[in-house]
C-alpha cells in the first residue's frame, strides 16, 4: 500500500508540472487557433534567459542578495518573453492569418528550431542552474503506518502549489478582467470579435505574452529540477498527451488531463513496467491519451468540432 500511495502522490505532482507546460499550449490554441509546437522551445528560452541573467547580474552590478537577483532576472526574462511574443505576432502569425492548421503548426515548428538555435547561440549549451530556493530534500510522511514512510518530494510539492496558484490566477484573469473577456471573445470567433472592435493583433500579443509567462514559470520549476539545458525543451513532448487528453481548448482540461497522465504514467512504469522490461512511461502516456480520445474524440473537455457539410 505504501509504495502505491507514494507512486500515486508522485504521479499527481508530476501531473501538475505537466499541466504547467500544457497550459501554455491551451492558452494559445484557445485564443488564436494555433497549436504552438514552439512551447517547449519557449520554456527553454525563458529558463535560459533567467538562468544566465541570474548569473550575469551579480557579475555586472555586484548585487549578491539572491532574492533580488532572482527577481531582477525574472523581470528581464519576462520582458524578453514579451518581446518574443511581439516578434512572433508581427513576423509570423500576422502574415499567416487564415492559413490551415497544419501550416501554422509547421510555422511553430520552424519557430522552435529558430528559438532553440538562438537561445543556445546567445546563452550557450552547458547545463545552467536556476536556484529559487526550492527545497531539495524529501520529506517522509506517515512513518508509523508505512515502513519507510511515504516519500513526498518538497520541490514537487512547491511546484504543484505554484501551478495551482497560476491556474487560479489565469482563471480569474479570464473571468473577471476585460482583457480576459476579449480573449474569450477572440477564441470564440475571430471575425465576430474583430467586427465589434477588438484589436486582434494586440490580443494575440497579449496571449503569447501570457503563454510566455506560463512558459517562464514552467521553465523555472522544471529548470530548478533538471538543470537548464537543451533537453528541457523535450518536456513539451511529455505535455502533449496532457493537452490532447484534456482537450485543446480547455484550461481545466489541462489540469485534469495532467493529473490523469501523471498518475497513469508513474503507476504504469512502477507496477507494470517491470514485467515489460521497463521504459514504458513515454508511450503509455500517449496510449492512455489515445484510449481516452477513442471515447471522446475532442478530449475530455474540448469543444466538439462541428463540421458543416
Amino acid at each position, binding site marked *: 500500500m505504501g509504495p502505491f500511495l507514494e507512486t500515486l502522490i508522485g504521479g499527481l505532482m508530476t501531473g501538475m508540472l505537466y499541466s504547467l507546460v500544457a497550459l501554455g499550449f491551451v492558452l494559445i490554441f484557445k485564443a488564436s487557433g494555433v497549436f504552438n509546437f514552439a512551447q517547449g522551445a519557449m520554456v527553454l528560452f525563458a529558463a535560459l534567459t533567467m538562468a544566465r541573467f541570474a548569473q550575469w547580474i551579480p557579475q555586472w552590478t555586484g548585487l549578491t542578495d539572491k532574492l533580488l537577483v532572482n527577481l531582477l532576472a525574472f523581470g528581464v526574462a519576462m520582458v524578453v518573453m514579451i518581446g518574443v511574443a511581439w516578434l512572433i505576432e508581427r513576423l509570423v502569425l500576422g502574415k499567416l492569418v487564415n492559413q490551415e492548421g*497544419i501550416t501554422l503548426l509547421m510555422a511553430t515548428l520552424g519557430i522552435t528550431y529558430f528559438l532553440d538555435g*538562438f537561445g543556445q547561440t546567445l546563452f550557450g549549451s552547458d547545463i545552467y542552474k536556476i536556484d529559487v530556493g526550492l527545497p531539495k530534500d524529501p520529506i517522509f510522511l506517515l512513518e508509523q503506518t508505512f515502513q519507510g514512510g511515504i516519500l513526498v518530494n518538497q520541490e514537487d510539492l512547491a511546484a504543484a502549489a505554484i501551478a495551482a496558484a497560476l491556474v487560479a490566477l489565469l482563471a480569474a484573469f479570464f473571468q473577471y478582467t476585460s482583457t480576459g473577456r476579449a480573449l474569450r471573445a477572440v477564441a470564440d470567433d475571430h471575425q465576430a470579435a474583430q467586427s465589434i472592435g477588438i484589436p486582434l493583433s494586440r490580443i494575440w500579443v497579449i496571449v503569447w505574452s501570457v503563454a510566455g509567462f506560463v512558459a517562464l514559470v514552467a521553465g523555472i520549476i522544471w529548470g530548478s529540477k533538471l538543470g537548464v539545458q537543451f533537453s528541457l525543451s523535450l518536456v513539451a513532448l511529455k505535455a502533449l498527451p496532457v493537452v490532447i487528453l484534456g482537450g485543446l481548448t480547455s484550461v481545466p482540461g489541462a489540469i485534469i488531463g495532467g493529473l490523469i497522465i501523471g498518475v497513469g504514467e508513474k503507476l504504469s512504469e512502477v507496477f507494470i513496467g517491470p514485467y515489460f522490461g521497463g521504459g514504458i512511461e513515454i508511450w503509455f502516456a500517449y496510449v492512455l491519451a489515445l484510449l481516452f480520445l477513442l471515447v471522446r474524440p475532442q478530449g475530455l473537455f474540448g469543444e466538439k*468540432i462541428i463540421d458543416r457539410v
Partner: protein
Amino acid sequence: MLYRENGQFKTSYSADQQIFPILQDRIAMGLLLAVAFVAVPLLGSEYMFRAIFIPFLILSLAALGLNILVGYCGQISLGTGAFMAVGAYAAYNFQVRIEGMPVLLSMLLGGVCATAVGVVFGIPSLRIKGLYLAVATLAAQFFVDWAFLRIKWFTNDSASGSVSVANVNVFGLAIETPVAKYLFCLSFLIVFGLLAKNLVRSHIGREWMAIRDMDVAAAVIGIRPVHAKLSAFAVSSFIVGVAGALWGFVYLGSWEPAAFSIDRSFQLLFMVIIGGLGSIMGSFFGAAFIVLLPILLDQLLPALGSLVGLDFDTAVVSHVVSMIFGALIVFFLIAEPHGLARLWAVAKEKLRLWPFPH
C-alpha cells in the same frame, strides 16, 4: 512559345490520360532521367553520392509515402519514423533469419509488415481527426521506439540492440559502391513514384481527396471512410516501410532505434509541407530542400566566416544553421503556404504563356 501544345492531338484515350500529355514535358522527363541515370554516376564524387544523393533519394521516397497520407488523404501523421523503423527491422529479420533470402524480397516484405502496423495505428483515424490524430500517432512513434529497444527478438538478440547488414546484393550484383547504391535507390524511387502517381490519379486517389476535403460529404455520397482512410494508411506505410528498409540497408548499414526517432518524423513532415501537400513533385522538392539545406549551410557558414575573418566554433555554426533553417521554413510558409510544388506549378504556367505576360 516553347511550351505550347499546338499540334499535339491525342487520338486515343490512353494518350489523353498519360501522366505527361505534353510532348515538352515528356522530353524534359526523359532528359532528367538520362541525367539521373547516366550523367550523375559519371560525374558525381563519392561524397556527393554517400552524403547527398542517397539520403535525398531515400527520404524523398519516404516523403512520397507520407504525402499520400497527409497531402492526399488529409490524415496528419507524426509516426512516420516508426513505420520506417518497422520496415527496416522487419526487412533485417527476414534477411537474417531466412537463409538465402533475396534482399529485394526482404525489403518488400519489410514494407508489408510496416503496412500491417500502419493499418493498426491508423484505426484511431476513424474516430479522431485533425491535430488530435497527429498527437495520437505519436503513440505509434514512441511505442515502436520502445519495442525495438526492449524486445530482443527483433534485433536478433544482439546485446547492444544495434543491428547491421552487409553483403547487400540484388540478382547477383553487389550493391557496395556508391554508384551502385545510388542507382538502386533511384530505381526504387522511379518505380514507387510511378506507382504513387497512378494511384492518386485513380479512383482510390479521388476517394482520398474527397475524404481530405470534406469527409462527411464524402461519406454521404457513398465513399466508405474506413476503406479510404485505412487504404491511405496502408499504401503510405508500405512506401515508408520500404524507404526505411533502404535507409537501414543501403545508407546506414548499421543502425539502432534512435535512427528512426521523432526527429525523423518531424523532418519528413517538414519535407511534405514545404514541398507541397497533395503533390508528388512536391515530395521531391521538399526532400531536396530539407536534405541539402543543413549540409549547405554547414559548409557555407564557415566559408563565409573565413571570408570575413571570423573563426566559427562548430557549436555556433550548428546553432546558426538551426536558426536559419527555422527562419527559412517560416519564410517559405509565408511566401508560399502551398509549398514549393505550387511555386513550380506557377512557374510552369508562366512558361506556358512566355513570352507573353498573360
